[in-house]
């Protein structure tokens, strides 16, 4: 199905099942422990051997020699794979560094070997017996030091430079000017389930059970890496214990399980250990961001500029932190610039809302600062500079942009009017309290997505697509979509996901999964409806699917009857035309946060949070809310504690476990509210939905930073905002 004109009324608009708060259909199996994850798929791979991954002890250089003698002789060892004996390996198109290093080492904890043994303990014990001599090379590990050598990134996605009007001239002559630099640190996905895979060979056919957000990308890149034809690799990943972008790509676990299984001549399973994950896999790169805003005295932006610097390994990608600044606020004169330095840290890559998550952390503090400079309320300053068109191309409208409504509703519900405009004025016992706000913004991306639906003689519809559920609720919204389309209750729909033998979906990334994958299921169901109507001899124009029946005029038949003895199968792909070129599609919101800052210790504790979101039709308000509160929590971590600390002497993230890399716990996150505006966006898809899984993290960090400023009068521009950055400017104790 081609989607190239705005959606009109369709069966989804019935909203009998879509749009209703619905429990996860996979909830009971997850709660009961019967939803199997990659490392425990002994139903598919019986009696696997265990692989233990050895990471490089240096960040950059070469392996001079590697001595496996003692390790090979250790109890239970079946095989050891290194770059020397792995055979020829290519690199997947989405990997920057090699997944098996050696002799060249590209980053700390890059995998250099996998030890395969009968038990995990034997493999781990033998791994300690591998002796490696390294030749260290000098590396670059400090973004600030490398900033001046940063260059325009070679990328076909986002332009390194954008310019409209005369930014320099307009900024120089603006009556009110603001110019500040912000930093965000490297951050880890820190998902609960580690990267884990099982691999089994049957001749030259490879089956991997893994934890991966993008099955088609993964199967393709794994085949490429191993030099296999694409159709020799089957990838299965039905349940994923969190990914956040860290599992968009094949990583060392799956490659080394495959290589280990080939070497050992039997299936092998590999999980990355927690201390390895932080340096072995990908992370959200640190940024340095300079923001300049020029405005008239009454608060109209005349010039806005955003420059961003980040680093990555050679041939890596930038963190595109400036992108939202091209779209979020009005202003005739604009510029953005993205620069990329070469760093020899582990590979930087996507983490939940890449670009906007980091960019909004800076931009939405800058807007708060500029509002104060102008003597304006920061909500009113944002509203004053709203735009309903793409500021770079005024002829191009937003498909729907209720940012102002989000801000006003949030301000009303949160009690914004009670906020003291003067910082440092509100006290509650030992706490200085403050309120902060920020806009939320994340682009809506649509991706081609296919699905297969089968109606069986029992009247059950089974949906198959390689879409993944990374904890987001994909199973449930896909079931809701098929149930709505076919006039069935949810319990008559079976959803099967995450298998490369299924039609290729959008996958889970960039908050495009929900809207795109359900649109694919919609397309397949449209075909199935046509096939059913034809089978029953009904004219398809007036046919109605409801209550397990198919009705046309005064005729009706049970849906199951159309299935006959052999069932009916339909498959289709939703393909998106150029509506996203004609219209700018984005999701919007507003974050409101109240914090308390301990007057003596400067410990920051969040008191309450509210997000108002406008993200098209909300397919399942229950799982969508979970997505938003999860993203708000992740944003709280980014604002207050998450920081992959670099040892700049030896080039690695030092705090590489969950004791050292702190993410929020329950005690950090008190009351959270989420409000969804009642919105449909027919430009986006037949579902009229948009992404929501990443919107919730965009801006929340700045809202927290602004609340801390409101509480204390101390402006911190370097995340995370830990107490040591506030302490010497706190009021006298006692």
């Amino acid at each position, binding site marked *: 199905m081609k989607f190239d004109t705005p959606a009109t009324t369709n069966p989804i608009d019935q909203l009998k099942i879509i749009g209703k708060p619905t429990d996860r259909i996979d909830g009971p199996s997850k709660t009961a422990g019967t939803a199997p994850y990659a490392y425990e798929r002994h139903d598919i791979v019986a009696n696997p051997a265990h692989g233990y991954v050895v990471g490089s002890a240096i960040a950059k250089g070469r392996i001079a020699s590697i001595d496996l003698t003692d390790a090979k002789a250790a109890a239970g060892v079946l095989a050891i794979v290194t770059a020397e004996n792995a055979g020829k390996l290519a690199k997947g198109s989405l990997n920057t560094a090699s997944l098996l290093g050696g002799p060249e080492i590209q980053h700390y904890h890059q995998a250099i070997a996998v030890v395969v043994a009968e038990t995990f303990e034997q493999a*781990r014990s033998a791994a300690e017996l591998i002796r490696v001599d390294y030749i260290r090379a000098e590396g670059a590990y400090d973004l600030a030091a490398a900033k001046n050598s940063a260059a325009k990134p070679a990328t076909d996605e986002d332009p390194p430079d954008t310019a409209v009007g005369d930014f320099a001239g307009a900024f120089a002559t603006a009556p009110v000017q603001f110019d500040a630099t912000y930093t965000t640190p490297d951050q880890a996905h820190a998902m609960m389930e580690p990267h884990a895979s099982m691999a089994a060979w049957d001749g030259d056919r490879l089956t991997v059970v893994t934890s991966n957000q993008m099955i088609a990308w993964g199967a393709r890149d794994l085949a490429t890496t191993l030099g296999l034809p694409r159709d020799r690799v089957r990838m299965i990943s039905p349940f994923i214990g969190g990914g956040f972008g860290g599992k968009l790509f094949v990583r060392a676990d799956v490659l080394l399980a495959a290589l280990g299984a080939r070497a050992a001549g039997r299936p092998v399973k590999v999980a990355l250990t927690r201390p390895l994950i932080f340096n072995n896999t990908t992370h959200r790169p640190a940024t340095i961001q300079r923001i300049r805003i020029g405005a008239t005295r009454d608060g109209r932006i005349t010039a806005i500029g955003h420059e961003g610097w980040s680093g990555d390994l050679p041939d890596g990608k930038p963190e595109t932190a400036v992108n939202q600044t091209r779209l979020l606020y009005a202003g005739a004169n604009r510029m953005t610039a993205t620069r990329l330095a070469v760093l020899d840290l582990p590979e930087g890559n996507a983490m939940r809302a890449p670009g906007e998550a980091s960019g909004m952390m800076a931009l939405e503090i800058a807007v708060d600062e500029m509002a104060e400079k102008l003597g304006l309320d920061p909500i009113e300053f944002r509203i004053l500079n709203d735009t309903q068109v793409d500021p770079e191309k005024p002829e191009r409208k937003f498909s729907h942009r209720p940012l102002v409504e989000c801000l006003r509703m949030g301000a009303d519900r949160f009690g914004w009017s009670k906020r003291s405009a003067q910082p440092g004025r509100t006290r509650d016992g030992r706490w200085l309290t403050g309120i902060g706000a920020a806009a939320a913004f994340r682009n809506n991306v649509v991706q081609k997505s296919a699905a297969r639906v089968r109606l069986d003689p029992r009247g059950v519809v089974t949906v198959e697509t390689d879409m993944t559920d990374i904890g987001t609720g994909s199973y449930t919204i896909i079931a809701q979509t098929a149930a709505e389309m076919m006039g069935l209750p949810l319990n008559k729909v079976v959803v099967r996901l995450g298998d490369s033998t299924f039609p290729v979906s959008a996958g889970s990334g960039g908050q495009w999964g929900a809207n795109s994958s359900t649109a694919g299921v919609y397309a397949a169901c449209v075909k199935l409806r046509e096939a059913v109507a034809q089978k029953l001899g009904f004219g398809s124009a007036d046919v109605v699917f409801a209550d397990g029946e198919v009705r046309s005029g005064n005729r009706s038949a049970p849906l199951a009857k159309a299935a006959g003895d052999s069932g009916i199968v339909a498959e289709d792909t939703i393909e998106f035309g150029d509506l996203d070129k004609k219209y700018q599609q984005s999701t919007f919101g507003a974050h409101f946060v109240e914090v308390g800052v301990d007057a003596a*210790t400067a410990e920051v504790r969040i008191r309450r949070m509210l997000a108002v979101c406008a993200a098209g039709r909300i397919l399942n308000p229950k799982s969508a809310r979970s997505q938003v509160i999860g993203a708000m929590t992740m944003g709280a971590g980014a604002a207050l504690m998450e920081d992959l600390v670099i040892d700049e002497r030896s080039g690695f993230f030092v705090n590489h476990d969950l004791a050292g890399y702190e993410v929020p716990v329950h005690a950090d996150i008190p009351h959270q509210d989420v409000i969804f505006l009642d919105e449909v966006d027919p430009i986006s898809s037949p579902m009229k939905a948009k992404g929501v899984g990443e919107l919730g993290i965009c801006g929340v960090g700045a809202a927290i930073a602004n609340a801390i400023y409101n509480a204390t009068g101390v402006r911190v521009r370097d995340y995370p905002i830990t107490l040591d950055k506030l302490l010497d400017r706190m009021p006298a104790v006692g």
Partner: protein
Amino acid sequence: MKPFTYERARSPAEAAAAAARIQGARFIAGGTNLLDLMKLQIETPGYLIDVNGLALDKIETTPEGGMRIGALVRNTDLAADDRVRRDYGLLSRAMLAGASGQLRNKATTAGNLLQRTRCPYFYDTNQPCNKRRPGSGCAALGGFSRQHAVVGASEACIATHPSDMAVAMRALDATVETVRPDGSARSIPIAEFHRLPGDTPHIETALAAGELITAVTLPKPVGGKHIYRKVRDRASYAFALISVAAVIQRDGSGRVALGGVAHKPWRVEAAEPDLPRGAKAASAGLLADATPTRENAFKLLLVERTLGAVLTEARA
């Protein structure tokens, strides 16, 4: 994890004798720290002596009116004990500020005292660490040292002791009771139990080879207000940046120990007469001769301000 031999001890004296006799033996009780370290091959004992069956799990009143806490009393039980809550509130509060419910259910009184540092370089076997591999150097010096010691550190080690419980024990003048391999008992004042790193940071306590902790005793209650204030970035389940354990009397006199600032729970009795003069005076004495790094210098101000808040709370 290296293969190891496991045996259950039958008496404290036998356990101590076996530990002294067998090269590389370690006692194991709750295992909340040792097992993690074994998985990472930071600790590689060839022999584990399980002391869980030794019936050292009672809390008793001493003839002097104090309290004798068996080495195996679990942190959860000790923190919840009515007498502890009434007479040694500091201890209960310190324990509840540490770890998680699950860990406290397993962790023992003796094991808590013997926790090893959480220095990230100690935890990464690729990095030099004089504590893990004596003579290899200290990567934390000149490295990531935000959590590290500001007083009593050495050129060989700037690690901190991670315990909350031990800080309260230090303020309460606890005594560590042990049995030695020859079967004799000894009492070690808590002040002498933990060592400063010096040039042997791998030797962390006064325990001799094989010596087993059997109990910790507390003198009779001293009254006063018991305040444990743990400061950290994350609201729970995090080690202290610094902590203040204080017992303050109505006249403003008192005692105070600090966590998160040194290789051991930090108390300077000579500074305590300054407590009635306020936090600035007292912390000047507590932190005299501090040698912070650039990354942890904030702890000096943090101690002073937190102590100030504690003294304010004590007066309230």
